[in-house]
């Protein structure tokens, strides 16, 4: 088992598979060696590590946005006119 992924999943409410699909596990594991739980959550949810965004991928994969079910602004476009429609219920 991967202790960092397991802890991250427990803290964030996202599955190990969801976390791995961000492609950020290795980068975050290296950053978060002596991090508090709150820091680990902030990193996953907002892509911010101690005041800095370590990579544009960290921003694009922010879990806060995934929780809401929208892409972070300026990363992926939902398509012309998509904003007209009633939003989908989030998966939880």
């Amino acid at each position, binding site marked *: 088992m991967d202790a960092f992924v397991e802890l991250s999943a427990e803290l964030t409410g996202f599955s190990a598979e969801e976390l791995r699909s961000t492609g950020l596990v290795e980068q975050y594991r290296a950053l978060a060696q002596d991090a508090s739980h709150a820091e680990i959550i902030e990193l996953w949810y907002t892509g911010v590590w101690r005041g800095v965004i370590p990579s544009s991928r960290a921003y*694009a994969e922010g879990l806060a946005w995934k*929780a809401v079910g929208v892409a972070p602004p300026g990363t992926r476009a939902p398509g012309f006119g998509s904003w007209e429609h009633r939003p989908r219920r989030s998966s939880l």
Partner: protein
Amino acid sequence: MRAVVVGAGFAGSLIAKVLGDNGFSVLVLEAGADTDHDEAVERFRASRVKSPLRPYRTTVAAPSSDYLINTGPFDYASPYLRMNGGTGAAWTGITPRMHPDDFRTADIGRGRNWPISYDDLEPYYRAAEWEIGIAADADEQRQHLPVAEGYRYPMHALPRTYLDRVVASVVDGASIDGHELLVVGTPQARNGKPVDGYRPDGNLCAGYASCVPICPEQAKYTPHRTQKRWSGTVELRTRCVVNRVHADEFGRVTKVSYQRYEDDTTGRHTRHEEEADVVILAAHAIENAKLLLMSGLANSSDQVGRNLMDHPALLTWALMPQPVGPFRGPGSTTGIEAFRGGPERGRRAPFRIEIGNWGWGWSAGSPDSDTAEFVAAGLRGTALRRAVAERVSRQFALQVEVEQEADPANRVTLAAERDALGNPRPSLHYGLSDYVKDGLLAAKRVCDQLFEMLKAEDYTSYKPDEERYFEHNGEPLRYWGAGHGGGTHVMGSSRRDSVVDQWQRCWDHPNLYAVGCGSMPSLGTSNPSITMAALALRTADHLVSSRVEGVLGKMSKAP
């Protein structure tokens, strides 16, 4: 005919195009550098604070608004960008016209009248809307504005957001303080579906939700589009900071001096001069005023730098009872126009309400702030995930632009402090009058009532330790900068009390023009770029039609 245009932003790029199309030889001198689009998008994504200037290349030699020095009771809150394309690269792309009453603000409210009317400008609004590429529906706009019969905007109105429909279903037809409410589509400078006969430049808006500060799809108009259409007689030189305009003993402008720099990180530069038959300053309201003051020109009225205005914006934010899907598509596609006029304008500033589609992003830093709040409250795992989803998906904001009247005490002067090129930094003395504060407070009360109608849970709070907080009549208030600086080379009907005439020509210098929002005697309640563009095209027309007897004729008539 040799024209020098100072500034390759919104107004400068438009005027250079018309002059170039009509055989002028045009040199555009831009203080800032070029920013590569892909690099800017990448910088936006990787920036912790996604403020308007953030994606763009900065240089030490030509700093943007972060080099302003505030000396007044309030901070001037609006950024601007010194870069090829200017603040027109980072702008929102919202383009409502001014209302006819907004040209008579002294008569019906506070401040100054324009020397021209809405009718004088109307044909140029149409020209600007086609040059820039505006998506709007003329019949819908006629609900609150006179738009010429038979006129079509070049693109159909963008689809409204889901949030707009939720708001409209509740407020349309209701009233507040005797004003009937109606949610009206806001004209947009981003690509929608074209009408017959119009070919959009660039892709359809894809809904990236980052129009400010950058549209990754390039569906939003920026001055770079107009620059691509410049004729071969227009030359652009970036990294050239004009620091003096020279006039002869008769007041006729002869040449400009500029400092050219190569590297981004030092003030190292070389000095140059360029002769011109006509000079057009299009460097931004504050930069135009700075340059006129540094040159000692155009100021017989003592109005250069004065009458600095902005739209102090009031933000209010709340949760809808149901998810509304924020952060999808443009920042705002509709507004409530009912408070832009009315008899109250004699007592307090009028305002325009934008329905804000990007959650509490601008007002409160969502969703990072929500996450931090829930984590601090001890939420973890699924409970945290649910709380963030539940909170953010219901967020919306009202963004209210309040008119600020021309007040000569709000002004740009030259600070003793110098920038890296040795030029004085702009010093701003800025304040809010009781007329503006009363408008902000009235806007707050209207927002309160709208939230109540919508059964929305109000989360608005203004705290004393926050920037730009103040109290008025015992009520906490706060304002944000809308990025709409103007008034600093004000237009008027008399040389005694204004800097430029109705053509944006300096009263004191027959061949010197100062163009842009700095010429506006009032800002009304509209985002000003489309009005700036209409004025620029009107000035360009005037320059083209008067060139024969124009500058040379005036020379022989000089005293």
